[in-house]
């Protein structure tokens, strides 16, 4: 019974957390491998449970009811196709992260602040996916936030990190309250919090709509939808890299799970305008996220912003799913939902891969600012391969997996002219354009990231003296890259595995993917469109192999090393290279004025004046400016005003009491 095994191993993770606390208190050196090894094993068990429940059919699914949690309701846990799928996503990430951490954790200067919370974090995420009642769900959800907050605060001497942790926890609790309200609506006044009960209950349309909005606020703030994404680029870089990988690659998916669970499974029949909201938020996040990413100098922050982009893409897919579901286009809905869940899976893979790469760079050079890096391809060759693979995947380039899922979403968009609602007819192509734009910008962003970090010449001593990292870290990344390749080359089985999920959510499924002929995938029908990652991969290999062979055999293979040509400029110094900022400059110049109110101003001294010329650039984060800063100032202003009440004289306090008394007496007199 996988569910029982899963719950047991979650409990095991909690136990590991406790043990880790004790070990950390005693500052044992060998604690690190032990803790990560244990979490690896338990996560692997959970992964198995997920796979069994997903592939093994209903025989391996099931529900459990424990007498803990909310009294008179207890805690329900269930393992259905949806939760199984996300259990797989979560725990694959968890396994690899634990493996990576065995190597990476050795460099941790304060293991005592990481070890106890890592397994707790894993336990929290798994519990969210497993729990099947509102209370358990929220407890697990907030526990997940709390433990990851502790991990963000691991390096607390840095004021930046403290701020990051604060913003993160605040946003998390905002999200939780929104979810709480949503569940309150779903459960109704007499508080029937079990999912099974909610599912069967009938929900008034406008109420369900309110639930959707609350879910967008609640789950969206955790997943990082614009404009609720602000905590994400702060918190993800602050945590240790293997945790950043989990937060960015996996935790956001848990949020997506929460959204799908409530909106597709619990809230009843969707209305067509739901899709409008979701599509707008999704495409907005996709483009804004990647635009921010292109301009970042901090490698991990860049990755965090690209997470915002990918979450946006996932939500575009979900929005399409809603649009099709309302119009009973089950086939299309199945395609859209499957595509977005598949993209969630893919993103969890390559985002973890990239964060691990960033972690390697951090351990190898101690630098996160790409302006100070460069030339690492020579000093850290393996990290370079692997990071390049991640870049290709996330830029949606064939034959890797990122392309497949985005291709499927585009195919889903092509089905949508049959949607009757006009708003959607205008919106869906627009979000398609946004998606394409985001993909192209992502390519630019990762050319920049890889090129500046790994290629060209070192820009700082740290980069010159970089060293390759431990085998654990490298092997973990190889595992991820291989899965990325497999998912890109043989996507068919993955999509088949998702069909029970779409069956459950939209009561429809994609056509069974033919394993033969030629391992191609077919979203709707062969005549419409098909794609065979295998053939493309094979052709590319063959073509390049053939080219190399032919040229080397029938022409020269001689090589001469020489100083760079560089149009004849002799040995230019590394500072003459293109920097990250200068690489991004054209894109900033084109998109900046709209997205960031970018302003560039030069001060050019008159000829003969020795003063240096200055170029000043101002970028404004409009979300902060127009949403968060006003809020903050309002709160502080109110606090200032009210604070006077702390300094009154006894007499004035008495007069407050007196006033209250007279007021109430008058009320009573008039009421009577």
């Amino acid at each position: 019974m996988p569910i029982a095994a899963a719950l047991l191993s979650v409990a095991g993770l909690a136990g590991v957390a406790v043990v880790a606390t004790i070990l950390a208190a005693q500052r044992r050196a060998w604690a690190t491998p032990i803790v990560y090894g244990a979490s690896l094993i338990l996560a692997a068990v959970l992964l198995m449970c997920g796979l069994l429940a997903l592939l093994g059919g209903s025989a391996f699914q099931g529900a459990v009811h424990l007498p803990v949690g909310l009294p008179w309701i207890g805690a329900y846990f269930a393992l259905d196709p949806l939760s199984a799928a996300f259990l797989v996503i979560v725990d694959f990430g968890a396994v690899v992260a634990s493996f990576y951490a065995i190597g990476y954790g050795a460099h941790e200067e304060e293991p005592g602040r990481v070890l106890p919370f890592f397994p707790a974090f894993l336990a929290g995420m798994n519990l969210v996916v497993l729990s099947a009642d509102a209370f358990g769900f929220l407890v697990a959800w907030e526990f997940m936030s709390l433990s990851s907050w502790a991990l963000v605060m691991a390096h607390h001497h840095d004021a930046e990190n403290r701020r990051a942790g604060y913003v993160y926890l605040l946003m998390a609790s905002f999200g939780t309250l929104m979810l709480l309200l949503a569940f309150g609506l779903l459960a109704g006044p007499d508080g029937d919090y079990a999912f099974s009960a909610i599912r069967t209950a009938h929900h008034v349309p406008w109420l369900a709509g309110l639930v959707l909005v609350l879910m967008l606020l609640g789950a969206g703030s955790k997943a990082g939808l614009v404009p609720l994404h602000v905590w994400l680029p702060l918190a993800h870089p602050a945590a240790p890299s293997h945790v950043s990988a989990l937060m960015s690659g996996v935790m956001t998916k848990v949020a997506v799970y929460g959204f799908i669970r409530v909106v597709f499974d619990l809230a009843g029949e969707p209305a067509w305008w739901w899709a409008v909201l979701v599509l707008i938020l999704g495409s907005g996040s996709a483009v804004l996220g990647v635009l921010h990413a292109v301009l970042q100098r901090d490698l991990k922050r860049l990755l965090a912003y690209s997470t915002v982009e990918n979450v946006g893409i996932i939500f575009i897919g979900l929005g399409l799913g809603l649009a099709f579901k309302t119009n009973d286009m089950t086939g299309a809905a199945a395609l859209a939902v499957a595509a977005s869940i598949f993209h969630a899976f893919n993103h969890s893979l390559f985002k973890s891969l990239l964060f691990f790469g960033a972690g390697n760079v951090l351990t190898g050079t101690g630098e996160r600012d790409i302006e100070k890096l460069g030339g690492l391809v020579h000093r850290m060759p393996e990290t370079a391969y692997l990071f390049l693979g991640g870049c290709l995947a996330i830029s949606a380039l064939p034959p890797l997996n990122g392309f497949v899922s985005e291709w499927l979403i585009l195919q889903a968009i092509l089905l949508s002219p049959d949607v009757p609602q006009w708003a959607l007819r205008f919106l869906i192509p627009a979000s398609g354009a946004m998606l394409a734009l985001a993909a192209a910008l992502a390519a630019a962003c990762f050319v920049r990231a890889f090129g500046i970090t790994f290629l060209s010449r070192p820009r700082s001593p740290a980069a010159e003296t970089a060293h390759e990292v431990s085998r654990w870290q490298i092997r973990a990344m190889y595992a991820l890259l291989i899965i990325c390749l497999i998912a890109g080359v043989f996507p068919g089985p993955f999509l088949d595995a998702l069909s029970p999920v779409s069956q459950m959510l939209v009561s429809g499924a994609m056509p069974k993917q033919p394993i033969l002929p030629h391992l191609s995938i077919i979203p709707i029908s062969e005549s419409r469109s098909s794609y065979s990652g295998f053939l493309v991969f094979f052709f590319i290999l063959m073509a390049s192999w053939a080219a190399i062979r032919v040229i080397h055999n029938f022409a020269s293979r001689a090589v001469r090393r020489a100083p760079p040509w560089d149009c004849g400029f002799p040995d230019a110094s590394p500072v003459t290279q293109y920097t990250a900022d200068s690489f991004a400059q054209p894109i900033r110049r084109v998109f900046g004025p709209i997205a960031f109110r970018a302003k560039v101003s030069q001060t050019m001294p008159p000829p003969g004046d020795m003063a240096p010329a200055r170029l000043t650039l101002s970028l404004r984060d409009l979300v902060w400016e127009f949403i968060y800063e006003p809020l903050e100032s309002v709160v502080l202003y109110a606090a200032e005003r009210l604070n006077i009440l702390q300094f009154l004289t006894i007499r004035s306090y008495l007069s407050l009491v007196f006033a209250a008394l007279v007021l109430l007496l008058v009320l009573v007199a008039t009421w009577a």
Partner: protein
Amino acid sequence: MERFSLDAAHLLAGGMVLVSFMMLYQNRILGLLNVFAAHAVVLSLSVAWQAYVQSAPHLFVTAAIALILKAIIIPVALHHMVLRLGVHRDIETVGGIGPTMLMGIGLVALSMVVMLPAAAEADPIAREDLALALSVILLGLLMMVTRQNAISQIVGFMSLENGLVLAATGARGMPLVVEISVAFSVLVAFIVIGVFLFRIRERFDTIDTQALDDFREGRE
């Protein structure tokens, strides 16, 4: 006889309200103390009358306490204190005497409006008594709110408490009245002692509560 007892009770209660107004009118501490003593005397008379009318001997104890403690000991003590602490003799009021008097009248009206319909079923003595007692209480509170010096605030509090005792004795057959009045006397004694015990004289140049609060501005 019944009629007369009623009128007498009302007369005494009304007398207390009147004396409360006189207290509001005072702008000299020593004068205030004397008026307060009068207030206590009227109270003890009214309590005694209630004891007689209700033929509840234990109320005489309350009356005695009122007379001895409130009409004699405390005023004298405060008098003594004013002289010893060298409190400046006149009372700073908030917003002048006149407006306070007007507010007082408004409060009396309010208490009538509130109590008379409310206590309809209760027997007439209790009813008028309650209304008057409530106005005494409100006037006492008003005094605490509108007077700056600690002494006058204490006096205000004690007049408030007189009103309570009046109400309690007015409630026919209410148990624990004596205990409560004793407890209250303890409370009042505490306040008076507090002024000594907390050595407010030593710590502050004045027992004006404004100055008391000056200490906190710097701290918080």
